């Protein structure tokens, strides 16, 4: 079998030739979670759940299993699992910082100064305690701003807190602050100190962050899909910086927890991202909003590119990431975090529908049933965002990104066709001019 990976052809539209796979009679799956994903897998035609020790073709595993078993599990070519071995290069705060810094330097070396400048979406972060002195230098440059201390991995111990004075963290260090060593051996640097975004964009006086889904099916070459749906998660309380005392504020301070960027996603309320886009467009106009969303596309691509060379790009792996984005008052998006295991538990009926569709579409793209041609730019709610190069909305011929008419093939926050069919309405055309014309795109 010839793979295009081996050929020298590397244009922006390098559609990888699909390897021949036999459609299987039934697909045996295992699932480590007991929420929406399990429902979706069980309802998928031709998919059969296997018990503990049985052989499987597909495993929705958790990261623990991955750490303990991946390295010595043999998988046939067709087998798929839902994580990359060292995804933490992207998801651990201290690693992504390193990777982004390195990537930025690389771009600068290559003379891509503009692109390098576009890597400034991650708030200034310092590993603690190894970069303590660098941190102090930065701290002294901007006195009075707020910083946030975060554990590098999901917190079991102290967790997050905000501070403005150096003495707060000196106290914290003295307090026997180091939590117990965590299971994976990387734990000399437990925390990062990060510049806190003090001017978040507020709606109704409330702070929110955006959860966006990105599916990566390969790192070498990089192939990534962006999901159209997502949501804005609002804080229950009105935003104020007054909750930061001059004293050292602990995790047990619920108010702080709520203002911390990665508070419990099940609390507070959610808007579909389409709603958010509608609100912003009505307020600021379409151009400004398109710019914001283009900047978000930039975040997704750059983060993935920055880890491209370090992630073990095993062909068995795919991964569905949950990106957490914060928008500030200047409508600049900031990356808060990338999650390799975004919550799949539904908080409401609507949430359940969104996550079911998301997961169904993910499985469509993973394509155990070998139905895709490989030329698709859209599958369900996913748009192909990057395929060893940027993907354009335009059909057919090449527009290079430098060309002013290039439009990225992303539609985050755009309402898509309803899942309900419209009997009798088969004409879907481009929007015609006012008056006579084809049925409007928005009408569908």
């Amino acid at each position, binding site marked *: 079998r010839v793979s295009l990976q081996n050929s020298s052809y590397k244009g922006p539209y390098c559609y990888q030739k699909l390897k021949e796979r036999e459609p299987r009679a039934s697909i045996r799956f295992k699932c480590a979670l007991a929420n929406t994903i399990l429902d979706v897998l069980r309802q998928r035609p031709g998919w059969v759940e296997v018990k503990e020790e049985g052989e499987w073709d597909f495993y929705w595993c958790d990261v623990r299993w991955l750490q303990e078993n991946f390295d010595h599990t043999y998988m046939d070519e067709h087998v798929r699992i839902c994580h990359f071995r060292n995804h933490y290069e992207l998801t651990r705060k201290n690693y992504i910082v390193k990777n982004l810094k390195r990537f930025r330097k690389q771009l600068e070396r290559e003379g891509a100064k503009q692109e390098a400048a576009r890597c400034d979406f991650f708030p200034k972060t310092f590993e603690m305690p190894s970069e303590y002195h660098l941190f102090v230098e930065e701290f002294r440059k901007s006195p009075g701003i707020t910083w946030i201390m975060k554990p590098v991995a999901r917190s079991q111990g102290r967790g997050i807190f905000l501070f403005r004075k150096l003495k707060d963290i000196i106290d914290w260090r003295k307090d026997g602050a180091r939590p117990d060593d965590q299971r994976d051996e990387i734990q000399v640097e437990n925390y990062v100190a990060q510049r806190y975004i003090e001017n978040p964009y507020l709606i*109704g006086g409330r702070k929110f962050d955006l959860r966006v889904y990105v599916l990566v099916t390969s790192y070498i070459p990089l192939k990534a899909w962006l999901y159209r749906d997502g949501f804005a998660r609002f804080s229950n309380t009105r935003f104020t910086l007054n909750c930061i005392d001059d004293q050292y504020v602990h995790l047990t301070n619920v108010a702080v927890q709520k203002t911390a960027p990665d508070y419990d996603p099940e609390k507070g309320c959610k808007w579909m991202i389409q709603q958010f886009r509608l*609100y912003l467009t009505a307020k600021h106009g379409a151009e400004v909003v398109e710019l914001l969303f283009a900047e978000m596309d930039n975040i997704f691509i750059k983060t993935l590119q920055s880890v491209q060379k370090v992630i073990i790009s095993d062909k068995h792996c795919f991964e569905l990431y949950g990106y957490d984005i914060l928008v500030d008052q200047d409508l600049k998006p900031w990356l808060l975090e990338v999650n390799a295991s975004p919550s799949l538990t539904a908080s409401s009926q609507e949430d359940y529908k969104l996550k079911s569709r998301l997961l169904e579409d993910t499985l469509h793209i993973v394509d155990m049933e070998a139905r895709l041609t490989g030329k698709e730019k859209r599958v369900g709610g996913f748009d192909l965002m990057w395929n060893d190069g940027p993907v354009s909305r335009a059909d057919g011929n090449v527009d290079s990104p430098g060309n002013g008419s290039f439009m990225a093939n992303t539609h985050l926050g755009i309402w898509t066709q309803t899942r309900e069919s419209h009997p009798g309405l088969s004409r879907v055309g481009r929007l015609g001019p006012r008056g006579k014309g084809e049925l409007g795109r928005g009408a569908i």
Partner: protein
Amino acid sequence: MLRSDTGLSLTIAQIVQRLKGSSLHSQLERQARVSPLHRPEIKLESLKEDIKEFLKTSGRIVLTYLFLFICHIFQGSWEKRILKSLNSMCTELSIPLARKRPANEQKELLNKWNEMGTDEPDLSLFRPVYAPKDFLEVLMNLRNPNYDNGDQPSFRNHLGLIQVPLKIKDIPELKDYFSELDLNAGQLGIDDSTQVPPVLAEQDSAAAQQYVRQGCPTALRAELWALILNISNQSEDILYYEQLKSNVVQHDLLVDSLIYKDVKLTASNDDYYFVFEDYLYQVLLCFSRDTSVLEHFTYNSATPPKSYIRGKLGMEEYAVFYPPNVNFKIFILSVAPLCFLYHEPSKLYQIFREMYVRFFFRLHSISSHPSGIVSLCLLFETLLQTHLPQLFYHLGEIGAQPLRIAFKWMVRAFSGYLATDQLLLLWDRVLGYNSLEILAVLAAAVFAFRAVNLMEVTSLAAAEAVLADLSTLKVMPLLQIFLFATVT
């Protein structure tokens, strides 16, 4: 229910006064003018026939007047019922209808003006004054006594819940009326180019109204609606709002608690509107004190019903007026979608008030206006009965009369039921056509769309379940199919 003689004559005089400028009045005048009885040469032979003819046509008009009178009475009785309920609530809870706030409380409220949602007053004792289905019951009892429906063949077999002979459009008339929605006409979506249309540059209100019949681009909607509603937010408008705000700060009304309760309830149940909780308080508290609104609609008295600040009985400067309606959930649902478009409180207030005065009030009061809730109900039922008779009959048989479900959609102008972008597209047309009839057409279109599933249900609960979730519907295709593509 009927008042004393003097009260009755006063009421009649008021109705006549009110109707003087109306189309009904001119109809009657016109009718009288062209009637054969007014012609100088009266032919004896045809006199009998002429009188019959005259009575037939004018009779309908006269009876419509009679119906209006009945509407009046019903509305009066309805309002009385609400007032009675309010009064008894005051007595039960020992809370005055209105009181002046002490100075420190005023100061506190002023400080908290932008975040009133943080309050958690104890509202458990306040009960809702009425629910939409109570209102529907009242409408169902609206019947013209002694009226022979035989004259209007279209009405003869009307099997719906609403039994009043109001004139409504049929589908050919609707097709003509809503011609801009035709399948061949482009309708704007939400992400289209925002080339500023000339109507905005020229600030042409009438042309803007015509323009929005095919939908607004999202980025321009706020401006276009303001243009159509003639809201410019001048300094005097801002001043007016500030005045209302100071009224709120100075006086505490019983209805404020009802507002708080309804806002909290609605906000906590609706993901899309909860964010605007603070705006909702600001707008509604002011609205409940806006006497210019109240003067607009009272039917039954020369001045709106009022109460006095405790201890200041009879002193006009301490008079406080009852708001036109006390089911605030309905108001809330009218304000909330506007929060997507307007962010400055005084502008938001002006827009809401204008929308209420032009359209939404008709959904909560009893009248014969073509955009009134009674006409909408009748239009909805007639459309359904005419074009989906099997469905209409089936649902009637199982006690799931369509109006029982559709009523709550229409009375809220679909707010809280449709996705926000769809709701705004619908309201574009309300503004564009200056009519709420589209709500009835949409309601019928929704039933038509889900007809297959509805034919299989065997109970009201099951029918409700089929129609519980409208959030995925796309309004324009539904309307277009129903009006222009359905084979009748």
